[in-house]
């Protein structure tokens, strides 16, 4: 992997995201969320704040990566990228970093607007960025086998529903350890922990478990790239 090439690609990815209006959508949604929170929620109500921040990187990241890859498929630029010195790892990292940056900035804006400047930035950014990365990579794996938006929209719920399940624990509708298998349980823990203290065991679990999922998602995305973006003979 070449760091120089990676930085260059992140720059170009951000530029493309501006051209494809992805930055605009992210900004509009962020303003909307901030306004919803400001208008509807009077008292300090951090559960709702966490819910909004949680849906922002998760939901939007999934749609953004889908759109970006389908645009690339549509104009056949992926074929052109595959035959440059660009590595699959650099391609994926670049998507993760550029979309992660957008997700983190949006989440920070919502958090600061809703909660003020006093919260744990490290835990917050750790949670948001890694979650966004996982979603981007899983989204890439999903979209790599799709041809168009219609097909992609059909699979979005299949990916998102399981990721949203830990919200049941978060809103104390359930108290299931099973949901701790899902990475988003760790995300919700960390988001909450950046505003209010949580137990040490929850903290250790969250800090360790999220990167484990990041690694798994990365490998799955890289596998999908080789399997679905490149054509292989049946011989």
């Amino acid at each position, binding site marked *: 992997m070449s760091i120089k090439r990676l930085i260059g690609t992140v720059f170009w990815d951000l530029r493309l995201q501006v051209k494809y209006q992805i930055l605009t959508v992210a900004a509009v949604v962020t303003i909307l969320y901030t306004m919803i929170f400001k208008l509807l929620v009077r008292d300090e109500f951090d559960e709702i704040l966490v819910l909004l921040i949680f849906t922002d990187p998760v939901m939007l990241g999934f749609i953004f990566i889908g759109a970006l890859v389908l645009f690339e498929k549509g104009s*056949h630029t992926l*074929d*052109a990228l*595959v*035959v*440059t010195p660009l590595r699959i790892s650099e391609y994926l990292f670049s998507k993760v970093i550029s979309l992660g940056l957008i997700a983190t900035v949006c989440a920070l804006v919502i958090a600061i607007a809703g909660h003020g400047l006093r919260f744990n930035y490290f835990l917050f950014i750790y949670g948001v960025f890694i979650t966004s990365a996982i979603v981007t990579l899983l989204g890439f794996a999903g979209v790599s086998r799709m041809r168009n938006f219609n097909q992609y929209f059909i699979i979005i719920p299949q990916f998102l529903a399981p990721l949203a399940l830990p919200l049941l624990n978060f809103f104390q509708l359930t108290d299931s350890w099973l949901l701790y298998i899902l990475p988003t349980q760790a995300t919700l823990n960390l988001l909450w922990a950046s505003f209010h203290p949580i137990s040490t065991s929850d903290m250790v679990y969250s800090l360790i478990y999220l990167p484990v999922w990041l690694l798994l998602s990365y490998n799955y995305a890289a596998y999908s790239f080789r399997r679905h973006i490149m054509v292989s*003979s*049946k011989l």
Partner: protein
Amino acid sequence: MIQADNLTFQYPGSHVQAARNLNFRIEPGEIFGFLGPSGAGKSTTQKILIGLLKGYTGKISIMGKSLEDWDPDFYNHVGIGFELPNHYLKLTAMENLRFFGSFYSRKKDYLGLLEKVGLLQDANKIVENFSKSMKVRLNFIRALLHDPEILFLDEPTTGLDPVNSRKIKDIILDQKAIGKTIFVTTHNMHDADELCDRISFIVDGELMITETPKQLKLDHGKHKVKVEYADGGQLIKVKEFPLKDIGKDQKFMDILKTREVISIHSQEASLDEVFIKVTGKNLL
């Protein structure tokens, strides 16, 4: 420079082999052409050679190294022109070049390349609004961006008017002159004839013959002489004679001596005649 031995490929979900037991060898500094009708397997072969299609059988060696042993650094040495233009439509021509250029460390001359194909004035226009010909030309110069040793060009002149087609062919010949090795596919026999040192005829995934264009025409074409003459009065007649031993051809000599000859043309065989003769198929 490039060698393929018993190269065979079948697309997933297809029940015919798109490339069947291909054997060829391309020497350094040579322009080597694949000439064949639509669906013959030209693009498929190019995509295999550039590592885009995996899972072929047989052996491919490029620059002395098996294709399977190459890492992505391979692409520092080869430039690829795709059959269908593939650009980032929301970026300008210049941005597209700079984006793809950012993957290579060699120094690039974007403006010089744009100028060569007549796109300098359009450098800062969004590619989405480009005409087909403009996209094709932009695609072509992208292959030259990093000054690669080997060029793979899939139908480089398709969709171009004669003037632009001329420009592209001149650049290809310039590249050969500075020592580049070039693989080119086409179903245009004039291009093949003009550009290629050697040509392979490909039909239904199989190579029928590999030769220099000149030798092909010598071996398989009939050279003829076409005579137009006035046969008394107003009547103009046209007759064809084989060029071989024409001086001993009594009928031909009679015409020369006794009739009023209007024109005599010697006719070279064209590559598409040769193609039909060798493969039994039409080029189009």
